[in-house]
């Protein structure tokens, strides 16, 4: 029975486009609250995972639902390793300054940059967003730029004058690259029961461009800063565990492929499985952090020793640096340690029957096919991260999310419509920590419902199921997400 549903839904999903969100979908069977979900025939059937497990991050899970919910060390991080965590914490929060400076360990900002510290985008270790007020600039969200083709490492080919991301800030007497301006178009739609909603579709203009207009074939990918929790646990998943769920050709015919990204590992100088970033375009936390230091703050490091200035940017190239590299291996290790051990907060309200009903619906409508409920980390990982049963609600794989969400910018093996399933653990606390609920890679979705309604491509079937749920069930599913 379940199998039949999936085939039908997949067929609708392939035809689905944004107009289908507008209420034109065919009536669909409603999910029965009690339906069992052994939904993915080719994958080893998961043991019936009990509902309502509060320990999303295994033994490292912390009990904190406050402003600091994302800022805690893993509960099982031994006391004698806490100082290292604090040091990393301090470096994560530290504002870098212009070189030369008395604080030789913290100078070298820019010359062009997006932010002065890690925490200005990952505020309280949380999630960035697009501007809300008209005069606000983009902080916590950046724009990757490239032109068609591949760089030597197999990644996107940087735009020749601006590089691979737009840096909207610069030190004194160095021109900033330019600014982005977002405009939104409202698209109305309706649930199957007639309740209406509106989705906003962003378009971006680029102004104050210091090095001439962007080329006609420019590829732009807007990306918000993701929250920082549980990253070490994701790094501690075995490759085999992740690849076991890949189904690149949709051999099981459930309409969901799931492809692994293969990316360049700068440390190992080889290709590797991509895990981090919106397109699973980075293999390790060290590379992710070093890349962000370089691209976002303008700080060089052993992995990325070259300043983020293109040949067209003379003043950027001529500006003094803060040492070679500006962040030494010790600092990179320290921030990486920190990012590895930021704890996942425990779930809340799991005694609430509505929350549990919503959790069951999450599985029944097919969300859990990609937002995979449970994994167990490697036995040979660093001990606080090892052998943990975790609930990240991601498979770390790429999925075609349809044309409406596409950035049309390939990133290693990810094509222009594919995105990595983002983890959902802790997502119910973003409102508390970051005072917003702007979801998806570009923050276009205003709340959980809109985020679900934007799902298309491989997510279309689940979206349609959601759209056809009765209002109370939709609310229950969202209550579940809020409990994460």
């Amino acid at each position, binding site marked *: 029975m379940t199998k039949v549903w999936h085939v039908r839904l997949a067929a609708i999903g392939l035809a689905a486009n944004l107009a289908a969100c507008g209420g034109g979908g065919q009536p669909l069977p409603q999910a029965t609250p009690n339906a069992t979900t052994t939904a993915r025939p080719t994958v080893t059937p998961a043991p019936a995972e009990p509902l309502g497990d509060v320990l999303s991050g295994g033994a490292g899970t912390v009990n904190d639902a406050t402003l600091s919910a994302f800022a805690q060390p893993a509960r099982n991080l031994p006391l004698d390793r*806490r100082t290292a*965590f604090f040091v990393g914490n301090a470096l994560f929060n530290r504002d*870098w300054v212009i070189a030369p*400076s008395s604080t*030789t360990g913290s100078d070298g900002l820019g010359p062009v940059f997006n*932010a002065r510290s890690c925490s200005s985008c990952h505020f309280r270790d949380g999630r960035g967003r697009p501007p809300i007020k008209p005069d606000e600039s983009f902080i916590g969200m950046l724009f990757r730029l490239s032109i068609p083709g591949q760089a030597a490492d197999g990644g996107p080919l940087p735009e020749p004058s601006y590089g691979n991301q737009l840096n909207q800030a610069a030190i004194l007497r160095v021109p900033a690259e330019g600014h982005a301006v977002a405009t939104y178009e409202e698209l109305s739609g309706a649930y199957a029961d007639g309740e209406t909603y509106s989705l906003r579709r962003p378009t971006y203009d680029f102004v104050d461009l210091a090095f001439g207009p962007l080329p006609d074939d420019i590829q732009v990918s807007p990306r918000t800063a993701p929250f920082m929790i549980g990253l070490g646990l994701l790094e501690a998943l075995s490759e085999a565990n992740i690849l076991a769920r890949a189904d690149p050709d949709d051999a099981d015919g459930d309409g969901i492929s799931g492809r692994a990204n293969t990316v360049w590992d700068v440390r190992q100088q080889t290709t590797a499985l991509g895990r981090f970033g919106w397109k699973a375009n980075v293999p390790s936390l060290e590379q992710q952090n070093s890349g962000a230091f370089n691209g976002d703050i303008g700080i060089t490091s052993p992995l990325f020793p070259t300043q983020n200035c293109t040949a067209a940017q003379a003043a950027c190239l001529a500006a003094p640096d803060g040492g070679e590299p500006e962040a030494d291996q010790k600092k990179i290790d320290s921030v990486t340690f920190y990012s590895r051990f930021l704890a996942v907060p425990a779930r809340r309200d799991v005694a609430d029957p509505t929350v549990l009903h919503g959790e069951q619906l999450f599985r029944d409508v097919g969300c859990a096919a990609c937002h995979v409920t449970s994994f167990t980390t490697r036995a040979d990982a660093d001990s606080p991260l090892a052998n943990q049963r975790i609930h990240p609600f991601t498979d770390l794989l790429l999925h075609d999310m349809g044309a409406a969400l596409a950035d049309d910018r390939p990133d290693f093996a990810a094509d222009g419509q594919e995105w990595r399933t983002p983890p959902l653990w802790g997502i119910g606390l973003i409102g508390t920590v970051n005072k917003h609920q702007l979801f998806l890679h570009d923050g276009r979705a205003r709340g959980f419902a809109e985020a679900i309604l934007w799902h298309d491509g491989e997510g279309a079937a689940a979206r349609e199921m959601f759209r056809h749920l009765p209002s109370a069930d939709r609310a229950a599913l969202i209550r579940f997400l809020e409990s994460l």
Partner: protein
Amino acid sequence: MGAIVFGLALSLALTVGAGRASAQSCAGDCDGDGSVSIGDLVSGVNLALGSGGDCDAVDTNTDGEVSISELVTAVTNALDGCTPVGPATRAGVVERYAALLYANYGDVLTGATALRTAIDAFVAAPSAAGLQAAKDAWLASRPAYLQTEMARFYDGPIDNAATGPEGFINAWPLDEAYIDYVVGSADAGIINAPDLYPAITPEVLVELNEGESETTIASGYHAIEFLLWGQDLSDTGPGNRPFNDYVTGSSGTASNQARRGDYLRAAAKLLLDDLTLVRDQWEPGVEGNYRAAFVALNADEALRRLLTGMGTMSGGELTGQRLSVAFDTKDQEDEHSCFSDNTHVDHRNDEIGIQNAFLGRYGGVTGPGIYDLVKAVDPTLADATRNVMDEALTAIFAIPVPFDQAIQGPDSSPGRVAIAAAIAKLNQQTDKIALSAEALGISISTTSP
């Protein structure tokens, strides 16, 4: 020890509020006459130094030893008179915390006002003596401010994510090359960019601070410190900016001297303005301000904030950001007050502030505080927490000055041994603060968000 006591007395003398009525039981009142006299203090210090004598009144935790914290209490009582400790309730502790913060910020404003006055006088007629007076005023203004830092980290008036001016008040590391010349870049900074910034006014600095989110913070204590001392290029002493940096005409040094003076004056004004905003939020009896909402909260929520501030100041901030990073990196200027070599005063007063919040102590009044609440449910934990705070303060005082030299050398060097000992004590303290919170049924975090 004598120098330490003197230093504490000096710093407290700058931060005490109005005197209060004496009371029956009074810490440090060795002769039991209801007030702490110089003679009483001498007795206390003699005990602390192990020079004999007898004074139970100074040994408030009755452990048979006189700690720095106990001397601090005695000195404040000497300056302000004594007030008895009442029976502690959660609401009472919340009220006391709000009151002590208001008094503390009042002293902060006194210091910032004197700093602005000294700076205005110096800029009007630059001289070596005027520069020294301004530096003295800056140094004098710091202890009171540092003691308020335990009130950060819970989205209160000082560092509310949307409105808190903390970044404009005490931002560090300072982007000095954004402000003025530095070694290796003689024409760096806004001061040397009349083409980009024709006039330097408080409004221009506000605009720099409040423009795009990622604009450099260009004001606050450390901007003023840099403009008074200059870069610290010495292994042994602080920065040595010549006063002629502010003299126009042929005897002037560097360029744009008048603009430098404008900058300094503007920064001093903004500092005072920002601190005033914070103080006003803690003023009693003001409808709609933070204090009004704070004391009206469920007492446990207010206590959670209080404890979060203390715990985070102790853990992520003082232990992590301020001691461990410098200890770990050995970057010579990886210290908060790097231009003036005054970082040791920052550490000490941060710790005194944590103790103040725990004990409900300020301006000659002690309690009711978290200590009293914990004492009622777990006396052993309450005393252990208080004692480890004393030990932490002693360990911090034991770090050799200047801090930027103490971090250098092998781990066996006296400075690094002392810093490691302080970090170890502070880790215990952070742990005890979290346990104290737990004993009150409150869960807190101690990392810097």
